[in-house]
């Protein structure tokens, strides 16, 4: 077997005295949906923030192997992880550019590519034709994802005016416009109605199968997880308590205990952010 797309080894993240993530190791493979689940405050978002470079892990190694080139994520800045290692992410509390239009959101996502095409602005200022071509291609890519996420009709609306479900989909479209090899989604189905949730499953399968992109998915909704994930990792109090295919994980007594909760522990678990 070749290297997995993302290899997380002994990841530990401390905030002062609090150990949010404690010695977690797992792999995520290309063309697979890997779900990270766990009760509130288990440390799921913190794992994402370490992968995306928003936090520097206290201990641990994060290796992303993209076309045979390894990138050591823990040593890279957040924007290099997105730009060079090609890891894209969405946020638990949606982070769009609310006053810009939907289309502009998707064009900003292609910034680095367009920046080079515009000769770092100099050529672009003087209307260099190569830039117009690059921009047209960027719009084509944006249009492709707008169609996939059903946002074509609202492409010229400001992003902040979209309904909640639309904003969630736009955030995924924007992440995909960076042409990532690994897409990290932090609770993409939160707040969606059953129908939107089903559409999201279709979209995620499409991303996995057609774009050979690895998907790392945080999700609370067990039914979503069981339906679409190829591999499930369960965190509880910052530790990994289970790792395996969905069916095996579902019947794991430790997972059931963590989700149903021992009475005295559940109050602590609620304290998570």
């Amino acid at each position: 077997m070749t290297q997995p797309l993302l290899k997380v080894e002994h990841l530990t993240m401390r905030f002062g005295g609090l150990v949010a993530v404690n010695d977690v190791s797992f792999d995520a493979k290309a063309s697979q949906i890997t779900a990270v689940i766990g009760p509130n405050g288990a440390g799921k978002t913190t794992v994402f923030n370490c992968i995306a470079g928003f936090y520097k892990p206290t201990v641990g190694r994060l290796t992303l192997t993209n076309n045979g080139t390894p990138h050591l994520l823990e040593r890279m800045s957040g924007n290099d992880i997105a730009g060079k290692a090609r890891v894209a992410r969405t946020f638990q509390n949606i982070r769009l550019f609310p006053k810009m239009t939907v289309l502009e959101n998707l064009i900003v996502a292609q910034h680095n590519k367009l920046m080079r095409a515009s000769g770092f602005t100099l050529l672009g200022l003087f209307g260099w034709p190569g830039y117009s071509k690059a921009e047209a291609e960027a719009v084509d890519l944006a249009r492709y994802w707008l169609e996939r996420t059903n946002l074509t009709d609202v492409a010229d609306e400001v992003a902040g005016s979209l309904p909640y479900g639309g904003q969630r989909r736009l955030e995924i479209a924007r992440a995909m416009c960076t042409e990532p090899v690994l897409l990290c989604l932090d609770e993409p189905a939160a707040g969606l109605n059953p129908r939107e949730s089903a559409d999201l499953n279709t979209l995620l399968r499409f991303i996995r199968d057609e774009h050979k992109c690895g998907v790392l998915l945080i999700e609370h909704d067990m039914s979503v997880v069981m339906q679409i994930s190829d591999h499930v990792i369960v965190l509880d109090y910052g530790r990994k308590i289970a790792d395996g295919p969905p069916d095996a994980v579902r019947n794991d007594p430790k997972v059931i205990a963590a989700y149903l909760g021992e009475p005295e522990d559940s109050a602590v678990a609620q304290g998570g952010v």
Partner: protein
Amino acid sequence: MTVAERLKDAIMAAAVAALLALPLIGFETVDTGGPLGIKTRFDYIAYAAIVVFLGRLGMRIAFDWRRSYRERIVQAEPTNIDRKELLTVLGQKADKWLMPVMIGFAIVMPFLPFANRTVIDLGTVVLIYVMLGWGLNIVVGLAGLLDLGYVAFYAVGAYTFATLSMHFGFGFWETLPLAGLLAATFGVVLGFPVLRLRGDYLAIVTLGFGEIIRVILLNWQPVTGGPAGISGIPRPSFFGFPFSADPPEGATAFHQLFGLEYASIHRIIFLYYLILALALVTNLFTMRIRKLPVGRAWEALREDEIACTALGINPTNTKLTAFAIGAMFGGFAGSFFATRQGFISPESFSFIESAVILAIVVLGGMGSQAGIVLAAAFLTLLPEVAREFSLFRMLAFGAAMVLIMVWRPQGLLAHREPTMRLHPAGTKPGGGKP
């Protein structure tokens, strides 16, 4: 509100005004030869109370009237609740017709019948502020970086121009790019360490930077001339043809070139067109760069820095470019200022200048090019108009600012035109792709 309630409210406001007015305007110090004497002016307090009483009453009535008007409209047409206000619509149209109209007016202004020396001079001052506003707009309006020390770059441009033209004999057109470049370099030097800071912190650091530059200008005697400043800065020539009644041997003066009678107003008009051209270049540049990746990244950064990082945008570099380019235009404006005045001193670059420029950007409606013109005209002409009441100038200035902020917190013409569209023939025609 009933009439009694309104009256009570107005009397309360008048009482507060009288109380405040007692120490503020109730006493006047007079020179009695020996120690300072104090004269009371209780009549002034009465005036203040009456004015506040009437004003408050009028305001209440106006508010009630507006509310009932709104309610009537909502009842009549329930769909019309988010009826667009005049200025919002104006803001949307501004880029399309307001700008061309204003530019057209600016071009013909010196030849209109009312245009005398004073008017053209005033126009020049307005245009300097328009240019500064447009320059700062790149930093504050587009990139969302609150810069309270913009005047520092204006000063760097002015002093660069003065030094280079006086000691090295550089002409205006040679010095202009150098002054801009140096100001931009200062922008990068300042920006590099501080652009990690956000919001208020950045504002404080830039404020400090503005003061540091002023203090350096005051104290670096050999180069800047200290508090006395630099005088005798060469006046601009018309591309090598000086504006003078008796040009030096071998040179052709402007009026000889065109076979005109010598008139000192020629230079005033030339300066006016010079700053108009510089301002228009700034505008053109901003309009273009908004549609380029950097421009979009600036706006995205203003909206959400964390999301930008997650998309691979380097926030520090992107902010630095905004800071440097904004500084460059400040430097250009400074050069113009130096050559127009012929004399510069640190006094021209105090914090109040930064504040006025920032006020222009905020009042105009962050990011709105046309709004900045209106705000610049308003803020520079208001003190001129209120010159007779020069004692109350700052008061009027403050009152106007408060009114506008209450009435339109988003600025006069806050409207953002998308930089590109997917459906050009959509609801709003004409906004095609760049």
